């Protein structure tokens, strides 16, 4: 089998990214949307690690680490918001959350 | 090829069988210990002095009717106990039972795998255990189990933080994440880390108690209050799995404690030459002995201490243990740098 080249990883991450993207665009449940975002972030991480491995430099992994940190923060805050919103509006259906419109 | 494939598999097999039997007999041991404490005999009926009681239990649980509550989420319902048990067992892969010894002519280290992120591996796998509790409570689709599972997972999460902090301080001491190297560093220093870090051990032990929902922290399962905690709805084999998982976790905590604090397979006072004769006893016997002692303490505590109330429990966790652990880390860090 052909040796695994970083390209393979990139294709994989692109695929994963677009799956996440579709999840964000299509799904109605806010939490699923958040999860799709997590997927997209993971895709990015895969990319980073793949490049780090390709150029034998650990900076990719460090950066991936930071991405994970940010993802954690984002998840915390996002869920907090969902919870607060749910407490007031009793729904997580993104279609019903249309307050911020003209 | 054989080395890399067969030996690990054999090791794994041995490990699994060993663990399962150990767990079973641990249950018996607990009931015996508690009985003695309470001026009674404990199970005597099955086998001499009730020694076969665990076998009876297992058979009972397997035979018993396995009910799934109505409208419960069948997949998750069945998955939950498995999710709880698997991490408990998987963790053992990393624990070094003994030094390089030859077994049946093959020199091999008495541990399944030694990965340089060993300790981290243990912590992360342990953290997966939470899912089982939560999903268990959730899947049974009734009020009390859900409440209990939320409470249990909250407890686990908070104490996991404390435990991890103590491990960090140990890593500082040992200078490496790999379990084997930790033990070797203790050997090198000729000092069990428990004496160097008594506070860390205490926090680790209390954390361990809390993580396995035992003794003073066994509120979620408190029979008296919320009718049996999150595995009320379970019966039969699934309940057995939960039970096994609980005890397996106990063993894990004990095992990790021994490796980290009590010098793994090292004999007491490893550096003291005088006690050379103690070397006769092979490393892994010491390991098992120390683990047994710790387990006994687990059981002993359960029999005596009353139960913490939930909020006291959380307060203890967050306001006492975690700060202490962090302080400990800082102190050790300074100590390591200075020494």
């Amino acid at each position: 089998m052909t040796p695994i080249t970083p390209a393979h990883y990139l294709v994989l991450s692109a695929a994963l990214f677009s799956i996440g993207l579709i999840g964000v665009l299509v799904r109605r449940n806010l939490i699923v949307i958040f999860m799709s975002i997590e997927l997209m972030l993971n895709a990015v991480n895969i990319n980073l690690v793949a490049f780090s491995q390709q150029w034998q430099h650990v900076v990719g992994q460090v950066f991936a680490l930071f991405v994970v940190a940010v993802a954690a923060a984002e998840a915390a805050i996002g869920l907090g918001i969902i919870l607060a919103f749910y407490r007031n509006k009793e729904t997580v259906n993104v279609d019903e959350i249309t307050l911020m419109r003209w | 090829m054989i080395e890399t494939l067969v030996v690990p598999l054999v090791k794994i097999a041995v490990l699994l069988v060993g663990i399962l039997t150990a767990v079973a007999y641990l249950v018996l041991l607990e009931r015996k210990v508690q009985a003695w404490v309470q001026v009674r005999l404990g199970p005597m009926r099955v086998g001499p002095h009730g020694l076969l009681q665990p076998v009876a239990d297992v058979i009972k649980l397997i035979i018993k009717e396995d009910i799934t509550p109505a409208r419960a989420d069948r997949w998750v319902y069945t998955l939950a106990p498995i999710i709880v048990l698997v991490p408990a067992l998987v963790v053992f892969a990393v624990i070094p039972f003994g030094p390089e010894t030859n077994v049946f002519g093959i020199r091999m280290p008495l541990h399944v795998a030694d990965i340089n992120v060993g300790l981290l591996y243990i912590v992360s796998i342990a953290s997966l255990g939470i899912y089982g509790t939560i999903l268990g409570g959730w899947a049974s689709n009734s009020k009390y189990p859900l409440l209990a599972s939320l409470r249990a997972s909250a407890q686990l999460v908070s104490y996991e933080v404390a435990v991890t902090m103590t491990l960090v301080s140990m890593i500082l001491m040992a200078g490496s994440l790999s379990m084997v190297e930790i033990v070797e560093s203790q050997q090198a220093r000729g000092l069990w880390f428990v004496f160097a870090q008594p506070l860390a051990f205490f926090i680790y032990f209390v954390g361990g108690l809390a993580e396995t929902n035992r003794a003073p922290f066994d509120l979620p399962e408190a029979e008296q209050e919320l009718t049996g905690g999150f595995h009320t709805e379970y019966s039969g084999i699934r309940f057995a799995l939960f039970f096994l998982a609980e005890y397996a976790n106990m063993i894990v905590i004990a095992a990790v404690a021994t490796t980290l604090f009590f010098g793994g397979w090292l004999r007491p006072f490893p550096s003291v030459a005088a006690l050379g004769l103690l070397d006769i006893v092979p490393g892994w016997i010491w390991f098992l002995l120390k683990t047994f002692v710790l387990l006994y303490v687990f059981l002993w505590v359960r029999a005596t201490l009353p139960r913490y109330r939930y909020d006291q429990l959380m307060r203890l966790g967050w306001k006492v243990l975690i700060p202490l652990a962090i302080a400990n880390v800082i102190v050790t860090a300074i100590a390591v740098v200075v020494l």
Partner: protein
Amino acid sequence: MTDPHPVTATRTPVQFDTDELVINMGPQHPSTHGVLRLILRLDGERVVDADVVIGYLHRGIEKLSESRDWTQIVLLTDRMDYVAAATNNLGYCETVEKLMGLEVPRRAQYIRTVLAELQRLASHLVWLGTHAMDIGAVTVFLYCLRERELVLDLFEEYCGARLTYNSRRVGGLPADLPVGWDRKVREFCDIVDQKIVDYEQLLTQNRIWLERTRDIGVISGADAIAMGFCGPPLRASGVMRDVRKDEPYAAYEEFAFDIPVGAAGDTYDRYLVRLEEFKQSTRIIRQALDGMPEGPVMGKVPRLIKPPAGETYHAIESPKGEIGFFIASDGKSLSPYRFRVRPPSFCNLQVLPKLVRGHLVADVVALIGTIDIVLGEVDR
């Protein structure tokens, strides 16, 4: 059946919250000392409101007594507070004697006092065991029951029964003490004194125990009186009230003993008060045995007990608190016109909702234990 007490309907939700739960601490709950039903409304862990439901053990003792003659009623009193049957009998007999104005021989008084104190010890042992187990200390429960076995043996030796003694007769006692009985009692007292020390070592200084009982279910003296507390819980709140001292009956005035009084009125104080009562009871028993006079055990009592028309009320200090008997007879019939009992458990139980409000679910269990109620007495 429809829920007789639609608690949820009557009380409007204080504040809309996603997870306000209504939990039934149902009749058959491990820590409810019998068939007490407690409907709790929780706000997360905190108890917002509680409603006590009783009546599951109601046998209509008071109504039954109206169709029985005066001596048969003694049997009924056994089954009220089944943990402390002796005190019930004593209370009932003394009330009838008071109504009829009978004179009870001093030896009977002394024996009655010994039996009452033994009964108090037994009741407190049961209380301590269950209370500790509720809070998690399982082993303490076993120790306590072990001691209680000794007391039951003593009673069995005297009146043949372990629980429903039927140990009193109007006017005196059914029989005199068996030979060597008092020696066994003295041995028992020594064992109890020694065991009390064990319990104190086990619990009194235990961090977790303190954590679970200190400042839990605090009741001030004034509130205690207002709410109708009696017995150890009342004394724990700092109110000096003991029927044995205030209105001495049987032979109490002849013995020297002091009444333990608590300060803060929380669960821990009640625990300390009852622990102290152990010591006082053994002390009384020893004094009684030492000073046991000789003489008949049964006063002059007409064959057919027909108390004159009238009504009276007489209270004695049962282990749970002040138990009072009110009997009214029309003078003609053999059975009482009206027989009413003022049970201490019932009075202490009514405080429970106030005690529980604001505490956590785990505390509810401890609080039920601390007021030491027996549903038999509550429901009658």
